[in-house]
């Protein structure tokens, strides 16, 4: 794909995502996964998880962060620029129009009903995105346990309204990854030393 065409595809895809994603954050994440990992295959499941980890642990809306990151990964600065622009343009236009007749918009019954339906559909999109990503991951005991534990923890956090940011859960996972690497590293070092003796 030529550079210009790819920039255009990035812009258009994120414009589409920005236009149809109701319910914020993770709904958008689910749709980005469907578009870029499942359909376009521009990102592997691992790369998508990395994008998300970074998007979640840096300031700013997750969807804006993901768009910037994916755009940059694909096509550098301009890729990032056009992806982010595409993502926010629809809501910019829609919200500007709504701001002109805010009070009347609130009274539209059918908008509310459509939104009830969308919430049910979006919950399927999010659940299937998470499960699909996990199925592509290598099946190690750590992966399975960390996956189940963090899912359970998040549900508990929201059910019991605990004040615990998901950024910490991500950092704990990263810490465990680092620790297991360090243990392996030290073990190898001592083995080498033992071998030399």
């Amino acid at each position: 794909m030529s550079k210009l065409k790819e920039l255009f595809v990035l812009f258009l895809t994120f414009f589409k995502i920005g236009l149809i994603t109701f319910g914020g954050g993770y709904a958008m994440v689910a749709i980005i996964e469907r578009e870029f990992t499942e359909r376009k295959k521009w990102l592997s499941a691992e790369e998508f998880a990395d994008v998300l980890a970074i998007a979640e642990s840096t300031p700013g809306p997750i969807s804006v962060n993901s768009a910037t990151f994916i755009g940059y990964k694909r096509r550098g600065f301009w890729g990032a620029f056009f992806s982010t622009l595409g993502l926010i343009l629809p809501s910019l236009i829609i919200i500007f129009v709504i701001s002109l007749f805010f009070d009347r918009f609130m009274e539209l019954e059918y908008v509310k009903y459509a939104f009830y339906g969308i919430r049910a559909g979006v919950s399927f999109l999010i659940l299937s995105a998470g499960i699909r990503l996990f199925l592509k991951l290598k099946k190690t005991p750590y992966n399975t346990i960390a996956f189940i534990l963090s899912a359970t923890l998040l549900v508990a956090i929201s059910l019991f309204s605990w004040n615990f940011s998901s950024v910490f859960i991500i950092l704990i996972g990263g810490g465990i990854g680092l620790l297991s690497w360090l243990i392996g590293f030290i073990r190898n070092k001592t083995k080498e030393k033992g071998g030399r003796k």
Partner: protein
Amino acid sequence: MPVLLDLFLTFLKIGAVSFGGGYSMIPLVTEEVVGKGWMTESQVLDFIAVSESTPGPVAVNMATFVGATQGGILGALISTFGVVLPAFVIILVVASVLKGLLKYAPTNAFLCGVRPVVMGLIVGTGVTLILTVIFGLSRISDSLSFDYRAFFIFSFVAFLSVLYKKMKKRTLSPIVIILISAVFGIVLYGFL
């Protein structure tokens, strides 16, 4: 201070300090826009409801709306630019640094530890939403109320997705899923 500059700086600040996105930034935004007299508290609550039923990130929607009511189209543009700018710059820096860091084993070890966690968080979010939408359970103290309409919509799009994948060997477009859900929402909640 001119209102446009004030809008830009306020939303720049909101964009720079809101971690985790979405709802975590609502208290901060409320404090800022109510404190500045741009919106009343009840207007903020109404707007959050609107933001849930319009596309786009809550932070961006909020910035556009406040900007538009305070400074017209230019205000909307400047506030939105302000709220997105910190995320954009930070991600550019992180992405370019990460490229170099991926050569090192510890970076990869960290990311390997993070990946299943992130996937678990997505599933956890999905389950939380299903509990809220289908079972009316967003807090542990809520009493169970089964919403058969939401359950029907959920099951229908799930069935359709699996069927489409089996027959066409491709993943069903999320746009189709959202549109079908919206139509069913209007029909089931509005006319039944």
